[in-house]
């Protein structure tokens, strides 16, 4: 007969092995950076943007979302409302007080930043959100279970949700026009394409960073001396230039690492190779034996649950 100790050993090993394949392997793979060296991004220079809102129009058109006539977007009023991206508008332009000596407001583009180490991708329970090596953070509605943990995790509060749909709600956000930018034609994002003043520049992230720093160097009075997104939150594919501190245009102060580094280190600290749970299992297997004192089975109302008989003879 198999003794309890042997049984527990076998059971513990089986449990550990299953669990290992469950959590350990997958995460070990994902923790290494898989980003391409020449991944792309967009540089948005708020000091150039004139707030024409053509990008809002082009974005909705490119994503089969409701959009109005082009001249409707000449209305400046919505920019005063400090809008956020919604299920119908993946990008919005907001207006802030004009810089000193100017009358036109500073206009700021809001959309998914496409983080280098995205919290939403780390949070997603089924891998419906992924970071493409080329840069875009893309969403696979087919995989999504609709838990909305990505929305909790996003430090920029970007993803919107189709709460009105009873059966097929989607998480909605800018995808950097992945269909075009990752596709055969190697296109550029619709918002960049339509921008009439070149406030938006699409290109290699590395080159864009260089360009951004060059602009600050060449015109130090024009810019706040920081490229937002270079390191913020672990870095982002969208890079921002502004005439003022970014906290004044409602961009969060995030530090240089992604919050997902913390959750992943906790998660893997406990579960890597399933060592933590295996230890607890082992400890309790010892406890079951060592705390002893098991009355004969017939004394216990819960006798069927304890399975002690036949194992206490040592």
């Amino acid at each position, binding site marked *: 007969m198999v003794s309890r100790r042997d049984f527990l050993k076998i059971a513990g090993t089986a449990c550990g092995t299953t669990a290992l394949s469950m959590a350990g392997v997958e995460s070990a793979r994902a923790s290494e950076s898989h980003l391409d060296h020449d991944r792309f991004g967009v540089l948005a220079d708020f000091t150039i943007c004139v707030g024409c809102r053509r990008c809002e129009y082009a974005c909705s058109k490119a994503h089969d979302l409701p959009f109005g006539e082009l001249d409707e977007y000449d209305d400046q009023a919505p920019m005063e409302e400090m809008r956020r991206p919604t299920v119908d508008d993946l990008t919005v332009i907001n207006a802030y007080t004009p810089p000193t000596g100017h009358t036109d407001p500073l206009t700021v583009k809001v959309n998914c930043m496409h983080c280098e180490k995205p919290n939403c991708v*780390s949070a997603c329970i089924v891998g419906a959100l992924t970071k493409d090596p080329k840069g875009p953070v893309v969403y696979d509605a087919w995989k999504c279970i609709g838990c909305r943990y990505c929305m909790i995790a996003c430090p920029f509060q970007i993803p919107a949700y189709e709460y009105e749909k009873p059966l097929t709600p989607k998480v909605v956000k800018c995808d950097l026009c992945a269909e075009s930018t990752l596709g055969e034609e190697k296109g550029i994002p619709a918002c960049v394409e339509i921008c009439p003043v070149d406030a938006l520049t699409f290109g290699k992230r590395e080159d864009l960073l260089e360009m951004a720093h060059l602009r600050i160097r060449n015109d130090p009075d024009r810019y706040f001396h920081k490229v937002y997104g270079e390191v913020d939150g672990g870095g982002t594919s969208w890079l921002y230039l502004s005439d003022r501190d970014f906290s004044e245009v409602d961009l969060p102060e995030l530090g240089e690492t992604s919050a997902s580094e913390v959750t*992943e280190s906790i998660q893997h600290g406990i579960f890597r190779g399933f060592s933590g749970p295996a230890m607890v299992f082992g400890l309790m297997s010892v406890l079951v034996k060592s705390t002893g004192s098991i009355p004969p089975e017939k004394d216990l109302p819960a006798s069927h649950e304890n399975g*002690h008989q036949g194992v206490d003879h040592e």
Partner: protein
Amino acid sequence: MNNPAAGSQAVISNDAVSIRNARGTHEEKAAPLAGNSKVPFLTPGVWVLIALALGAVAVLAVRFTQGLGAVTNLDNNYPWGLWIAIDVASGVALAAGGFTMAFLAHIFHKNQYHVLVRPALLTAMIGYTFVALGVVVDLGRFYNIWHVMMPSMWQGNSVLFEVGICVMIYLTVLYIEFLPIVCERFIGKVNLPGFWAGLNKPLDRLLRALDAGLNKVIIFFLIAGVVLSCAHQSSLGTLMVIAPGKLHTLWYTPMMPLQFLLSAFAVGLSMVIFEGYLASRSLKREFELNVMAPLGRIIPFLLTVYFGTKLIDVVNRGAYKALGEFNLQTAMYGVEIIGGVLLPAFIFMAHRLRRQPAWLFTAAAMVVIGVVINRINVFIIGYEPQFGSGPYVPAWPEALLTIGFISIIVLIYRAAVFIFPVLPEEED
């Protein structure tokens, strides 16, 4: 064979008398209430629960035809609300009685507690079932829940994946742990009528084989249940660690997983007292003070360790400075800590109070409510996103669904103790 009396060696001296009595009680057998109950199954209170349950069904009908937007106040800034805070996060915590009692009675061999294992297991089983159902209601694409079980879609970096897979496995383990009770109920009593009578013998034999088989392996499931519970109870606390800019500084700490686990230990045992008292009142049965009081003695130690991690953390991070300002968050923090941790700990520690069922119940109820408030604080009150359009307040259908689900849990518990041998047999 080991000496049964050895179990009382570890007994805490103050409660020595009660333990001797308790050893008496655990020689009783558990029995279904049906036929022996002092109260009928249907009472006016039960009708109220049924009405509330029907209310929940109505909310479900609207939710699954009109969408989450029609029944909730959730929006892009507040994607998680009452259902996540109460039905899921609090539900998991309050169902912790299952694994804590399994640990005390079966793994740590505190044999006097055997009598409490079955009710706690039943609560955990029903509780987790409704955690799972609560999740399904909240998921936008609930029919994709099976994706979590597909290795091709496993996402090992996701804290939520860890919670999800653990809860799924643990729920299965709970059903397996309950099977011996089903076997006990029907072995020798399979009595199908008429045409089906021929199946009686094979069914009985099957049950006996199942029972014997389970008896050999059940300890594996009991230990696995404790391991799985520790894993996901703590991981629930890791969930919000990914949102540092959104969660109020009084709660945001990378120590949340430890704090969630420790509070689960305390609230698990408190729930056993809490529901034991309510069940004894509702079913007009004796309250098992002789086991409940010693159980209550353990809780202040757990609460003290829990409070220690909270205190060290807020001091260490300087978060206590936030308490200088009086607002909703600091008030709720005060209620959570004073009302849910410190006061009940003092009541549990006072020997004279602990020996009075009403006080014991009060202290247990305070811990239960305190932990629920903590989960509400972490997932709702303390959740302050930068672009929040004001605090999230649940819509009434959200509240009705939560209340209705709790009603259904109570109804199923009541039905189960009438049908299955869960509560100890009482002499007349």
